[in-house]
């Protein structure tokens, strides 16, 4: 402390490399920015790595299984295993995770949880499967756990007993993976969701476009945007963009004219009258912002829903590659009596 320059009048001197922190800098310090933000390439890379890692171990197990049962297996059985017990690839994994993330949303909403908690549950679930492959842990086993954990982390306490009763799940099953999830979340439970930002923009639009916008209409937009944001949380934009940017993209989708007008009035002056105290990357560049919002919007719009059939097919693949015995049993059941009521494309329950 003594080597800090100190002014004579006793006022505290500024420490070395002191600077003003903008709110953007605060966001840069958040765990969401540090651990859970990626460029599209980074995200893809990460997913490929996780998938490859799991595939290696699954294939290892498969080989072991075949080696152990080599004598008892018929040619047909071997062929079936080779054909159908294939580990899923990265794209299929993403689809499956998205499918179950949607399930998380539906279940959490059925439990009448507040929007932010639903969002947190979805986020936790998806982050967990950024670190883990569906080949290692079946998605459905942690659905309830993520919801339970989200309730806890968002200060909405439900006892485990009543939670288990509500979801008709077993208490131990829910609690079993809790710590593993926490570990994979790197013990960071704080989420910045776009809802608060939406509320903020809702207020700020009223000031900027004062008298030019119908308040009732704003209310409608607010409600609809909320729904859009929840859907956006099921896409990869949460990893590519900061929450307010996602909010603006949702607003843009809802009412493009209004949002563009607001942004123009708010930020367009920025490019010319640059504040000399701020450095270039702090102030908001209007064109850059618009292009970011538009690309974010595109991703949200073009997120294809995962059809149930496809999800089931992927789930079956996961199941077979992990337990080839199940596949064999099914084959046996089917073969001896080619009965018509045993429909050939019957899939295991997912």
């Amino acid at each position, binding site marked *: 402390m003594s080597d800090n320059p100190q002014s004579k009048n006793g006022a505290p001197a500024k420490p070395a490399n*002191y600077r*003003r922190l903008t709110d953007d800098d605060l966001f840069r310090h958040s765990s969401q920015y540090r651990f859970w933000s990626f460029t599209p390439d980074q995200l893809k890379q990460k997913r490929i790595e996780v998938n490859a890692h799991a595939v290696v171990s699954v294939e290892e197990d498969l080989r072991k299984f075949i080696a152990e049962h080599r004598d008892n297996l018929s040619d047909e059985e071997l062929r079936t295993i080779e054909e159908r017990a294939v580990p899923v690839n990265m794209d299929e994994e993403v689809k499956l995770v998205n499918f179950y993330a949607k399930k998380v949303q539906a279940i959490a909403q059925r439990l009448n949880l507040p929007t932010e908690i639903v969002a947190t549950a979805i986020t936790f679930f998806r982050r967990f499967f950024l670190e883990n492959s569906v080949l290692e842990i079946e998605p459905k086993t942690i659905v309830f756990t993520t919801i339970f954990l989200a309730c806890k982390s968002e200060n909405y306490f439900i006892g485990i007993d009543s939670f288990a009763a509500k979801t008709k799940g077993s208490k131990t099953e829910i609690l079993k993976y809790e710590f593993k999830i926490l570990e994979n979340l790197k013990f960071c439970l704080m989420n*910045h969701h776009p809802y608060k930002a939406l509320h903020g923009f809702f207020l700020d639009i009223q000031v900027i476009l004062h008298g030019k916008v119908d308040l009732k209409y704003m209310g409608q937009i607010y409600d609809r945007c909320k729904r859009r944001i929840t859907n956006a949380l099921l896409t990869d934009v949460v990893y*590519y963009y*900061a929450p*307010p940017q996602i909010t603006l993209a949702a607003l843009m989708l809802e009412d493009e004219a209004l949002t563009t007008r607001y942004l123009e009035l708010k930020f367009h002056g920025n490019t010319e009258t640059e504040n000399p105290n701020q450095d270039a990357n702090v102030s908001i560049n209007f064109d850059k912002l618009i292009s970011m919002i538009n690309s974010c919007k595109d991703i949200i719009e073009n997120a294809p829903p995962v059809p149930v059939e496809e999800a089931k097919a992927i789930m079956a693949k996961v199941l077979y590659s992990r337990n080839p015995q199940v596949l064999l049993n099914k084959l046996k059941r089917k073969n001896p009596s080619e009965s018509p009521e045993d429909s050939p494309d019957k899939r295991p329950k997912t």
Partner: protein
Amino acid sequence: MCPICKTDRYLSPDVKFLVNPECYHKICESCVDRIFSLGPAQCPYKGCDKILRKNKFKTQIFDDVGVEKEVDIRKRVFNVFNKQLDDFDGNTDEYNKYLEEVEDIVLNLDKGIDVQKTEEKLRTYEELNKQLIMTNIERNKQDLESFEQRQQFEKEMKMKKRTLERQIEEEERMNNEWAKREIVNRLSSADDATDIIEGVKNTVKLKKSSARRKLEELNRVLKNNPYSAANNSGPRKDAVPFTPFNGDRDITPKYTYDEALYNDPFIQDLKDRKEFIASGFRPDYVYKRVLTEAFMGLGCVLSDELQASQMATSQTS
């Protein structure tokens, strides 16, 4: 029960146990006298081959022998390693490193890891830094003394204050009584009641007791107490206040706050409800928070920034 002579508390309730820092085995006082008065002897415990001396025996302070042992070790180590933050010119990192080292030594001695080496380290340090250790011991003693002096001084002051206050109370009571009597006396001879009462009350007010004056003086002394003054205006005052990210928040918000223009039915509904107001709900907190969140990270171009940071890390590695 003493394991040597089998005396127990039931028959001799005032039996005292002693331990020796060599092995920390509990032995009763009479046994110590009996066995060790002729000079050093082996510990009477079975399987313990430590040679103990009588003068090293002491009463155990902590129930747990482990704690007792650690406290002894600490006392010994801290007598040698007695540097303070001032010895490092206020360099906190260096000082912390030093503390860490001392803790390592304590742990090693306590758990019996590399005892020989650690003892060696302790000895060499002691020899190398004899001068410094002595001055530090001196300083510690002075610190302790001044602390005691200060406490003494404060205690005395408090005592004085209390006696004075009691005096004042006493005097006040006397005055009131005197006033009552005086009023009655005078009323018996004169007739204008209100005048008399006023007059007596004024005389009471004017009687400012000497005790009260003394108390005021004492308070003044306490305020510019040499000890407390020296204590308070330490280095703390001009140190830089802590800011978590080495900087204060930007004070110019990106939004213009105007509560009058906001039309938010949900918040406005809560604003007037008693149960919300009672627990400290204020709409401006909510507004400011959501507005801040709206612009928090809006300027972050994640893809560019992450790309840059990735490049930076790959270059350094």
